[in-house]
């Protein structure tokens, strides 16, 4: 089963590499990964979908938490969380199918973001399974091209989001003895 790992990381060069390095070092393939700035511009939220052996999952998350740039890494797989993904679909349609495509799009709550004589560009959001279905349906109407965003998730467990207060370390750095 795929896991969803949510991380709060410092928005710094190399932070992404440190996190993904823990997975690649163990030869795990990342199914999807999204990362973007949070309200605090110094921090980024990262959502990774990956298939890690059950026995190693806790270890991988602990190792992520050890990274200096990672404030928090949590496993959202079995905890209450909302997951959403966006897909952009370009579908070629015949003149006869245009109405049917629009009706299907409406059923999936997709929006038309571009329309041309060749067909449409559609935008849909939802959980990944729903998007799979949407893509399947659109494929039945003609040639399609898709780009998926990868899953973003937010935990519904309020405790999970509580952060450790930042640690301020006073360094006793003295004048050098000459």
């Amino acid at each position: 089963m795929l896991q969803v790992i949510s991380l709060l990381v410092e928005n710094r060069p190399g932070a992404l590499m440190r996190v993904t390095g823990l997975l690649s070092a163990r030869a795990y393939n990342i199914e999807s990964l999204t990362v973007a700035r949070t309200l605090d511009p110094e921090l980024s939220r990262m959502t990774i979908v990956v298939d890690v052996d059950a026995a190693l999952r806790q270890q991988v998350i602990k190792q992520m938490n050890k990274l200096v740039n990672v404030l928090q890494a949590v496993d959202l797989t079995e905890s209450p969380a909302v997951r959403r993904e966006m897909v952009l679909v370009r579908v070629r349609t015949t003149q006869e199918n245009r109405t049917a495509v629009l009706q299907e799009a409406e059923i999936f709550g997709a929006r038309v973001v571009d329309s041309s004589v060749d067909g449409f560009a559609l935008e849909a959001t939802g959980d990944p399974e729903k998007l799979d279905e949407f893509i399947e349906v659109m494929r039945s109407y003609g040639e399609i091209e898709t780009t998926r965003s990868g899953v973003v998730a937010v935990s519904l467990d309020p405790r999970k989001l509580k952060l450790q207060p930042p640690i301020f370390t006073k360094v006793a750095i003295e004048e050098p003895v000459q």
Partner: protein
Amino acid sequence: MASLMNGAKMLLECLAREGVDCFFGYPGGVTLPFYDAIYDHHIRHVLVRHEENACFAAEGYARATGKVGVCCATSGPGATNLVTGLVDAMMDSIPIVALTGQVSSKLIGSDAFQEADTFGITRSCTKHNYLVKKLEDLPQVVHEAFYIAASGRPGPVLVDIPKDVFQAQGHYIPVTSIHLPGYKVFTEGHTGQVRRAAQLMWEAERPMVYAGGGIVAADASAELRELVETLDAPAVTTLMGLGGLAANHPNFVSMPGMHGSYAANMAMTHCDVLIALGVRFDDRVTGRLTAFAPHAKVIHVDIDPAEIGKIRVPDVPIVGDVKRVLGRLNKVLAETSPERKDRLTAARQAWWTRIRDWKLEHPLAPVTSDSEIKPQHLMMEIDRLSQGDAIVCSDVGQHQMWAAQFVRFNAPRLWINSGGLGSMGFGLPSAIGAQFARPDKLVFALAGDGGFQMSIPELATVAAYGLPIKIVVMNNGYLGMVRQWQELFYNNRLSAVTLDCFPDAEKLAGAYGFKGRTIDKPSELASALEEAVREPGPYLLNVKVSPFENVYPMVPAGGAINEMVLAPPQPVAVPK
């Protein structure tokens, strides 16, 4: 207001404020500005002969003192040569700050001369690493690097500095605080768990202390001794923990694991409470996991939460600094009821009787011969001269295991070896670092003929600085440990393990201007070692030992630790 200075001087200012008195390095193109600043600075730069050895020397310095060791290399090949040492420090949790030069900021990514992606390459072999892009970041980064290297579970931190940052002019503004929002250091340990641990310890009939490198790193020897004495528990220390409990302490059993003693492994197997302190249940200690301490409830104290439950799920997990946790544990133990202690006396006596029987049954016996020098004999002679007090920097292989078995250490930070990574070529350069750190100490660099030949360039460093290191080569003419495994598990098909053409030690040392000697008779051993120790300068002693001696006891890979092969020629399975 501080005066204007360039980045190179600012870096030295940071090092001085961190209390660095010497560091190990090798210059190059992009570090020219830094080396220009070093020219008239009071911090001592030690010129080694290979960057890898700069890192090993910094490790030796750190391992001998507990202070952060510092090494320095230029960009590209200089930086990539540090990698083995960085991984070594990572595996053994040794605090190192590695400084590397980088090509000028504007050239990064252009395949400039001697450019390598040091930041990317060293990401997975450091605790943390930095690429400094602006001079104003430099002091903050360097002080953070020292803080990260030394705090929590120690480890190597690399700081990559482009040439233009060394050259830029700026003011040193003292750093007074470090803000690392994602860096979590656990120190205290959970009070409830400490109480539970204390209770479990009192309830134990057959307790066993399993102490590792964490005891040395946390400087927790005194606390460990108090615990062991309060409980009257037997204790083993791992390869990384040797000296953490004095070898002459009556409760010290010996080293456990693949080449541990029979008594240590049997005691680990039969204990009912395993008190694991600053250890990581390394496969070389546990053998087959399902058979490791199968009857024991486990108390595991470690500063790294990722170590708790990684290999063995403990009954009482305590995340914290082992020194502080033991301090509190000792207090709780002292406060809790003494009548329980009395109740357990009979059981404890029975436990000690069993351990003494195991010790007598299969002791780590002295092996000597009249015709050839046995490796064990060599280690016993080093032990006799050391009196538990010399620093022994070991390379990797058979000699390392024999030294761990036969050389006793009565204090921490005397036994210096590459434990986790097992890097050959570690012995001599780490001895250089240790001797600079502890000029007052007798330092042995102990290596096999394989590892020594990886370190030969550093004989020049030893000679140039007149370091009185006693280099002892246990020369069996083979890559002994590999040969042992080929003999035992690959039908004795000895493939690529024969080390022909070992240089004449007297001529080799003589070429560098110090004394060397080769011996092969048991009768010469004691006097030759004494002569080496008496010599005020360096000494290279090449000891030809019996070539086919194997390290026993031995737990074959994948075996249970109570199923040791105790002696040649026929493997003997030991009944429980």
